[in-house]
Every structure is written in structure tokens, then in C-alpha cells.
């Protein structure tokens, strides 16, 4: 039983197809890491899966309202405190309270600080803590470890491991090794769109995720 499946998906950026013929399944408890050079379409793919832009071909199969997206921007309001930012998203998504999320990303001591006084890494930690309060099963993460130090990356890996252990799934565009056994890797280079011809699909690919 996979939480999110993609069949023969093609996505566009700026009117041009960047990825074609993409197939994958992510079962509950598993994470898939997207690899590929700059411009391979990692962000475009994540935005398409999040529903922010339509797919031009193929289908995305996942339960409704199961996706939480975290892009390059953290969606924080500088004038609100850390706790207010989190409880806002918790209320919008109707998810669990913000206490566990604060402690998971080591933000409890910063809870009363306005978000504009945080450092870049602290902001990112708050942005990642937001994923926990959404209560959604599938996390789509775009370069989640940017500006995080080693300790914070470990915190994030722990949070991700707990999410997967509780039956969640994740699709992550990152170049960092998170050191999790539940992670498989997908290289997007093989699916790069080529005008005029259908790209060959590597055989036996789906078995890797069965």
C-alpha cells in the first residue's frame, strides 16, 4: 500500500517539459530522495505533486489532503513569535498542537522570540517544525537542510525517522546523506524530457520500491 504513486508523469517549467515518463511509489514508512543536477526539475516536480501547478501528463495517486509541502521559503511571519507562527499553521491545518514540534526541533527556548530575530538556521528549523503540526502523512521537502548545522541536520533526521515510523512518507530533494535506512534514491537525470522522443525507462526500476 503506497501513500503516493506517480504514473507516467510529465511536468513543465516555464512552458517547457523538464521531466517525462516518471513512475514511482512511496509506501508508508519510506522516504525517497530526489537527485539530479540543477535544473533537473526537482522543485518543479515537488510543486506539481503539492498541487501548486498542474501536471501536463500522467497521474498522481494519493489520498486527498495528505500532502504537506515545504519549499525554499519557510512561510514565516517576522512580526510573530515562534510559537505564534507554529500555532497559526497548526490551526489552519487542524493538526496536533505545537509543543512536540517545538521540542523536536529544539525551539522550546526560542518560543517567545519574534521570528525576525532568528538566525537563518533557526528559521529553517521553525519551517521544518511546521511540517509536524500539519498532521499530514506525505511530506514534500525541497532542500530541507539548507543553512542547518550538523546538529540540526541530526535533529531533522530524527524527526523524519519518527514521521516514517508513525506510518508517514516523504519525498525529499537534497544532496545531503541523512543516514536513514528507510531512504531510497531516485535520480531524475534518466527522466529528463527530450523533445521529440520518449525517454527510455530503466528496466526493473519499480522493483526497487516494492
Amino acid at each position, binding site marked *: 500500500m503506497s501513500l503516493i504513486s506517480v504514473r507516467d508523469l510529465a511536468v513543465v517549467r516555464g512552458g517547457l517539459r523538464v521531466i517525462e515518463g516518471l513512475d514511482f511509489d512511496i509506501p508508508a514508512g519510506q522516504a525517497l530522495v530526489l537527485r539530479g543536477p540543477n535544473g533537473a526539475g526537482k522543485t518543479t516536480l515537488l*510543486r506539481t505533486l*503539492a*498541487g*501548486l*501547478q*498542474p501536471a501536463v501528463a500522467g497521474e498522481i495517486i494519493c489520498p486527498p*489532503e495528505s*500532502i*504537506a*509541502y515545504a*519549499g*525554499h*521559503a*519557510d*512561510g*514565516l*511571519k*517576522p*512580526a*510573530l513569535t515562534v510559537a*505564534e507562527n507554529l500555532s*497559526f*499553521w497548526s*490551526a*489552519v*491545518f*487542524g493538526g496536533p498542537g505545537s509543543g512536540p514540534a517545538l521540542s523536536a526541533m529544539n525551539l522550546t527556548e526560542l518560543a517567545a522570540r519574534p521570528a525576525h530575530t532568528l538566525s537563518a538556521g533557526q528559521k529553517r528549523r521553525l519551517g521544518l517544525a*511546521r511540517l509536524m503540526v500539519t498532521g499530514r502523512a506525505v511530506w514534500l521537502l525541497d532542500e530541507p537542510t539548507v543553512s542547518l548545522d550538523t546538529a540540526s541536520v541530526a535533529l531533522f533526521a530524527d524527526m523524519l525517522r519518527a514521521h516514517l515510523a508513525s506510518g508517514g512518507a516523504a519525498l525529499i530533494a537534497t544532496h545531503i546523506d541523512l543516514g536513514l535506512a528507510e531512504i531510497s534514491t531516485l535520480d531524475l537525470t534518466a527522466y529528463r524530457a527530450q523533445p521529440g522522443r520518449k525517454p527510455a525507462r530503466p528496466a526493473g526500476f519499480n522493483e526497487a520500491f516494492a
Partner: protein
Amino acid sequence: MRALLWRDLRLAVRAGGGFGLSLAFFLIVCTLVPFGVGAGGGQLSRIAPGILWVGALLACLLSLDRIFALDHEDGSLDLLATAPLPLEGVVAIKALAHWLVTGLPLVVFSPLLGVLLHLPDAAQIWLVLSLLIGTPALSMLGAFGAAITVGLRRGGLLMSLLVLPLYVPTLIFGAEMVRRGAIGLDVTTPLVFLAGITLATLALVPFAAAAALRVNLR
């Protein structure tokens, strides 16, 4: 929904939120006009309805680009679009928050400025009523303009060009209502038109604005 409204109101009153900016602009315009026009000869009381309405309209326009631009910059708009709220509801709530922060203070302070502009006493009630009925349409139409221009840098001028023509009917009937009230005529016709425009705007524009947002988020 309520959380979004609270957040927007809280952001507006905190530092740099822009609360009071529109009101200050409205006060300045309406205080400067008597100096420019001169207080004598009943001129001022004749043009007062128009000045008050134009002032309210420009004050409203001043803060429109904040409705979606800030949320777009910091990524919250992407997250709101993936949240379990309908985007139409997000538009309506953000327009409501804009009205509470800019429109409502104008309504409350308008009688004071009416006095300053020699608006006849009989027209005061109609001034307040017309602004109360008309300004929600200004905020909602403004949210539409802001939704169309959300991805553009320096989109303020384009937004003004898009939104100002849409404001004209509200301006005409709003100012006409006050003018008729000032000279003791029946205000029913402009009142009904003004209310009709506002209700139609509130009913239809959230859908148009949400569609524009979806296109701009791609």
C-alpha cells in the same frame, strides 16, 4: 479561517504592519483640501462629498499591494494554497482583514473630516452609511487586483491601473448618495445601487481572485 483572520489582524497592528497608514493618508488629504480650496463661499461644502469619497478610495488603494505580496514573498501563500482552506475563502478572509484595518477606521473617522470640510449636518449620517456600505467593495476589488499582480515586482502601478476603473461605480454612487443627502434629496437610488455593487462584488470576486492566484502560483 478564524486563525487566518487573527493572524492578519495581528500582523497589521504590529510594527511595520501598515495599520493606520491609510487612515493617516485620508486625514492628510482631507485636511489639506480646505487649505487648497479656501473655506469661504460654500465651495467647500459643495465638493465635500466628492473629496471625502476620493480620499477614502485613494487611502484604500495605498495598502492594497500588502494583501498578497508579503505572503507571496515569504512563501506563506504557497503553504496556504496547499492548506485545507479553499483559496476563495482565503481571499475573502484577507479582504475582510484589509477592510477591518483600512476601511473601518475610515468609516469611524469620516464624520470628523466631514465637519472639517463643512459637510452639512444632514449629510453626515449618509456619509458614514455610504462608506460603510461601499468600502467593503473597495477591499474586495482590491484583493482581486492584488491577486492578479501578486507575482510581479513593482506591480503597484499595474494594480492601480487595473483596480481604479473597477472602483468608479462605487465612487459615483457613494459620492452621489452623500451629495443628495446634503441637499435634502431622496438617497434611495444611489443607496440601492451602492449596496448592489458591494453585494455582487462580495459574491463573485473571491472566485475570480482565487483563479488569478492559482495561475500566479504556478
